[in-house]
């Protein structure tokens, strides 16, 4: 399945003559890349967001405010908008918007995943429950109320385990525990994280406990078309993710795993999405591989987060977002052949809490062989919060080369050139 051209629907002029609605929270990294893709494809696009856009008056109705928290109200807003500007497709760009995109698409009869299938991927406990009978290797798991007694829960738990919120993204609130003391501390800490993150509903009241799965981790980027999965990229994560926190760093594609392992990964993801009922649009999956097999850790009905998609270049200048938009609009999707033999991205980790005062070495890092770009995404003066409380990266480094090894080396070398000045908050308070 790797690098295979996916089904190309016939050109549909009607699709491009109608508007595409992108649903994006104001905290997203992703909107620029999607708007650029829409521009490349000549697609009339509107942006729906949870806040009124500052220049909405001048947008020619190209922006609209949508309540992402009240799904019924949000869907009604989109349906009303469609009465004036007929929509060809709705894309939920981030975790926060995939479900409302599915519900609105269902209301308007547009091709999309069912809301139930999307909802299952957006809630880690529901995902585990849905996959429990799929026959896929799965860790033990149990759902605890956030109000449970941590000491009691620790006594009854298995070890090592990973405690997770049900809905936060980017490894926020994900903590490995190896004993009762760690469990109780992590349990309390996640409770505080949930409160501070403003999580509401079921996700605010529960914490998922999963058996820790050792092994190497990979991320898979795919596109579903009528249930048929095309693998767009399989990323190795060469830095060990063993806890206690799980901050992402380097992604490199193509994977250096043996072909037979990659085949099992593909089969695992295929089975998972079929079980969940996902059949249209992008998916992003994370898996672990060990001697016992391939374990699906998560799958989401969206594309890769952050600015990581910029590491992917397909033939004829196509980017990941171009393929997603083409698929959503029923336009022909070209063969997803990578443009470079190997590419990668490093999400620059936050080394310590504090205030970012300076970043040195950017030009030297950019000048590193095989480095394509470097973006610092946190403004100077901002307070840096590492995982598990935080969910941001300092920035992104992109590399391309002839081999995955060369790309990984370039990313590490470039990162080594960067020097961050971070003023400790404790020192500041003194």
């Amino acid at each position: 399945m790797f690098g295979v051209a996916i089904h190309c629907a016939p050109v549909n002029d009607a699709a491009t003559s109608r508007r595409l609605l992108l649903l994006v929270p104001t905290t997203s990294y992703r909107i620029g890349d999607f708007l650029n893709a829409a521009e490349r494809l000549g697609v009339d696009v509107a942006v729906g967001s949870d806040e009124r856009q500052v220049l909405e008056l001048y947008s020619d109705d190209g922006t609209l405010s949508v309540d992402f928290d009240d799904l019924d109200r949000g869907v009604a807003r989109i349906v009303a908008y469609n009465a004036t500007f007929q929509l060809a497709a709705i894309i939920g760009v981030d975790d926060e918007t995939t479900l409302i995109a599915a519900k609105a698409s269902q209301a308007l009869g547009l091709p999309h995943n069912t809301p139930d299938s999307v909802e299952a991927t957006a809630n880690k406990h529901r995902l585990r429950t849905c996959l429990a009978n799929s026959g896929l290797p799965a860790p033990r798991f149990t759902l605890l109320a956030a109000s449970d007694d941590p000491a009691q829960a620790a006594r009854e738990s298995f070890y090592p385990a990973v405690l997770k919120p049900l809905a936060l993204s980017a490894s926020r609130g994900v903590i490995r525990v190896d004993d009762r003391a760690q469990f109780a501390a992590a349990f309390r800490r996640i409770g505080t994280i949930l409160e501070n993150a403003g999580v509401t509903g079921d996700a605010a009241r529960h914490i998922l406990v999963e058996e820790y799965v050792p092994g190497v981790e990979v991320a898979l980027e795919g596109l579903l078309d009528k249930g048929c999965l095309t693998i767009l990229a399989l990323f190795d994560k060469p830095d060990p993710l063993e806890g206690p926190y799980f901050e992402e760093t380097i992604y490199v594609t193509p994977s250096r795993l043996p072909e037979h392992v990659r085949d099992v990964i593909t089969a695992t993801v295929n089975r998972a999405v079929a079980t969940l009922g996902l059949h249209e649009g992008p998916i992003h999956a994370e898996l672990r591989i060990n001697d016992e097999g391939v374990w699906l850790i998560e799958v989401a009905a969206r594309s890769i987060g952050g600015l990581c998609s910029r590491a992917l270049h397909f033939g004829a200048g196509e980017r990941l977002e171009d393929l997603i938009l083409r698929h959503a609009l029923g336009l022909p999707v070209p063969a997803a052949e990578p443009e470079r033999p190997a590419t990668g991205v490093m999400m620059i980790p936050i080394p310590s809490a504090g205030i970012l005062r300076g970043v040195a070495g950017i030009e030297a890092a950019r000048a590193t062989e095989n480095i394509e770009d470097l973006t610092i995404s946190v403004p100077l003066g901002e307070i840096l919060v590492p995982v598990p409380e935080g969910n941001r990266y300092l920035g992104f480094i992109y590399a391309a080369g002839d081999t995955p090894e060369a790309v990984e080396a370039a990313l590490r070398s470039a990162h080594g050139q960067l020097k961050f000045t971070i003023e400790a908050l404790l020192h500041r308070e003194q």
Partner: protein
Amino acid sequence: MLAGSFPTCRDSHALTVFFHRSLRSDIVGAVSKIKQPYLGRATCRRGKTPFAMFIQTQATATPARMKFLPGCAVLSSGTADFPGADSSNGSPLAQALFEIDGVNGVYLDPTSITLSKADGKEWAELKPAALVAIMDHFDAGRPVVDDGFETTPETGLNSEEGKAIQRLFDEHINPQVASHGGHIALVDVRDDTAYIQMGGGCQGCGMADVTLKQGVAKAIQAQVPTITNVLDVTDHGGGINPYYQPGKGGTSAL
């Protein structure tokens, strides 16, 4: 919406009235009732050589300004801005135009004459008078500017397009983005491209692309249709107080 709040260039229409100079006074009376922009035609002369002159008018982004395109060279190069009658020394054409009651600004460039009108005056009254003044001026073979007059070198920012975009920013865009602590500057205009730079809350904002593509670009293109590209030259990584920051939040809708 913008198009409803002030006229756009797309609202302009080709001039509809052609007339000979000998019929001018009759036509001036007639065209004063015409709401659409219009074209004047006259037999003019360069020096003593008669030639036909077609003057086209064009609405601008600002209702108080109207562009007149005589179809012949106005300035050989550069621009000249006369914000009031007192400043019109050195330009016989500007002086003639300031004699029209209600004209309070004249801007010249190589191809056009842009007039500003006083509050309370209507273009329906001013346009015929301006046409006559322009035709008389060229017909008499008088210079647009005196010998030795130094025009301002033409740059993107003081081109008519640049000025129109700047007014759009000053009067409409920046008052809006100021509510987010932001501001947007016009850096340059070259050919069909406007270069802009975001600052304050717009610099590094997670929604900067939406502000640019769904707001600034659409507003510019509605008001200055000759601008087909709007490029953001902001170093968004250097933003120190972006209004929306990526990665803050990140919770599922559930």
